[in-house]
């Protein structure tokens, strides 16, 4: 009995689900949450590099969807809408975190500052014998500026089309392509020693 219901759940489009939810169907909202929670979590986690913060941002995204459900209009894809909300919240969180970091760095003593720097200039040669780990990739992603980080995650990890990315971050397709290209070049340059080992 559960199987036909699941098939129905999978067949129904996101846009139909949000319309049902707009009419008061809470089950449709639950399906939206189930469909998007991991996708969004991956996007936000890769953007922020912190699981706890990422989960908080995704929770806030779904809360916004709940509150502002009537703001969605079918002219746009639902995925674009929800990714835009998540992206905006993630960027806000990143700015907030940077402000906190600036404040805490200014409060650090000399010894603390030295420790902080030594962690940053960790030599790549020390990693040549280790396998290409996700942490290393994630750290290199985190070193990119947010505008490059966002597009490379959406394109290469989330595998969204350039057109959809352009709508999510509201910049022309040409700019998206150029940013993706530059981000890839930078990353492959920084991870070259690891990528070669992991061929």
């Amino acid at each position, binding site marked *: 009995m559960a199987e036909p219901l699941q098939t129905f759940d999978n067949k129904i489009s996101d846009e139909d689900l949000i319309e049902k939810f707009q009419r008061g169907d809470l089950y449709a909202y639950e399906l939206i949450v189930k469909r998007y929670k991991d996708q969004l979590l991956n996007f936000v986690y890769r953007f922020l590099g912190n699981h706890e913060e990422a989960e908080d941002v995704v929770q806030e995204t779904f*809360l916004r969807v709940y509150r502002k459900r009537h703001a969605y209009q079918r002219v746009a894809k639902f995925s674009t809408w929800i990714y835009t909300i998540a992206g905006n919240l993630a960027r806000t969180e990143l700015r907030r975190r940077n402000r906190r970091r600036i404040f805490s760095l200014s409060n650090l003593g000399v010894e603390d500052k030295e420790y902080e720097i030594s962690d940053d200039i960790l030599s790549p040669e020390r990693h040549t014998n280790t396998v290409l780990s996700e942490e290393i990739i994630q750290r290199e992603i985190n070193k990119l500026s947010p505008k490059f980080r966002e597009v490379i995650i959406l394109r290469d990890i989330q595998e969204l089309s350039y057109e959809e990315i352009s709508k999510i971050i509201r910049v022309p397709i040409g700019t998206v392509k150029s940013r993706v290209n530059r981000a890839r*070049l930078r990353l492959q340059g920084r991870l070259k020693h690891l*990528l070669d080992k992991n061929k």
Partner: protein
Amino acid sequence: MKNCERFTELLSDYVENTLAFAEKRELDVHLEHCSECRSAADGVVNLRRNFRRLSTIQSSPDFETILRTRIKLDRRVHVAPIWNLRYLAPGRFAAYSAAAVVVMGCLFYLWQRLPARALPPASSTIAVSQMQLAPNSVFPSVSPAKIFYTLDQVTPQLWPNFGASRKSSERASSAPTDSSRAGSASRPAATPVSHQPITF
């Protein structure tokens, strides 16, 4: 060098295979001779492969429970806008109406009380009359007769009805037997008013 720059620009299109045939052919030829660009292209292909291998992050098991709780709390915090029809529910409507009647009653009561407290229009006339009433005022040497004389000069200009009402009340009461003015200098006739400068 120029070809390297062009290749760098088109690198993503090249690895994603979205270039036109002629352009792809042109870049293939360049790669055969340029090891640096070939290495960059290999690097990007590898990078994308590694990105695809990244593990999927799973949300915590209580993700949906927490979300439901947050929604419930959010509903309590966010009060519905004033135009929301739920404010017109019968019970609430009666309560709001009663509150409105009480507020209007209070306002009406205050409005009724206010004229009784209201002072006559502020003017120098009042100040002068108060000076006359205060025995130990800052002008102790001024005689009451002079003050009344001054009042007669000033009040018609500032408060036209004051003089008339006072005169009529004076006429009704026996003015000559007024003990307060009897011993002092005789007061000049009330009419006509001479236009003398007011001096203390």
